[in-house]
């Protein structure tokens, strides 16, 4: 249970940034 909490919390912390990176790349490519 503890590992699950830490894993979930880590994803909550890190994944929005990762997703954003892809989204920004997509937008930049589209703009170009």
């Amino acid at each position: 249970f503890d590992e699950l909490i830490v894993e979930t919390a880590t994803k909550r912390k890190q994944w929005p940034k990762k997703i954003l990176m892809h989204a920004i790349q997509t937008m930049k490519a589209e703009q170009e």
Partner: protein
Amino acid sequence: SVNPMAYEAQFFGFTPQTCMLRIYTAFQDYLFEMMLVVERVILKKLDGFPGCKISPCQIRKSTEKFLLFMKDHFDKLFSKMEEVLLQLVLNIPENVILPEDKVHEQYPYTKEQFQALQEEIQQLQQQYRAEASAGQALQAELEEQKAVRAELEKILQWFDGLDNICREHGTSNFKESFAFLTQNCKKLQAVLKDVEKKSK
């Protein structure tokens, strides 16, 4: 009910309970280890008194008695410490948001708002594409117009050239001179006829 303290785990990288558990087991291990060391030291000291009547069993009983007492206090004190640390140190007050989540305070978008924003962006993209192709069409027509205009101007120049030829040969107004020419022709034809008649 277990409070998973997931938000704290997001900040610390571990759950506060794990941290406390880690400290608890370490402290407890030390306590036990130390008591075993104490017991070993006492037994060793007793070896120096062969005549004494204290048996290892007695010492073991004393150790257990002291350890039990300590363990009991240890648990009470530790749960107090845990309570304080989980409340004051290893916790994130409910009015506090972590830096990586600040965006949620600044842009609390509902699903509908988000979709509307996405739709608006798609619409803008379509509009832009339409404008871009309209722009291409306009550019294409401009190119075409250039060619057509060149052609038309060439024709006009041709007419100018025609007029210039006439002018060079003294006929400034073509129409009058043409009329004049026609009259002359007619006169000539009349004269010709006349001559022919006379010659017969």
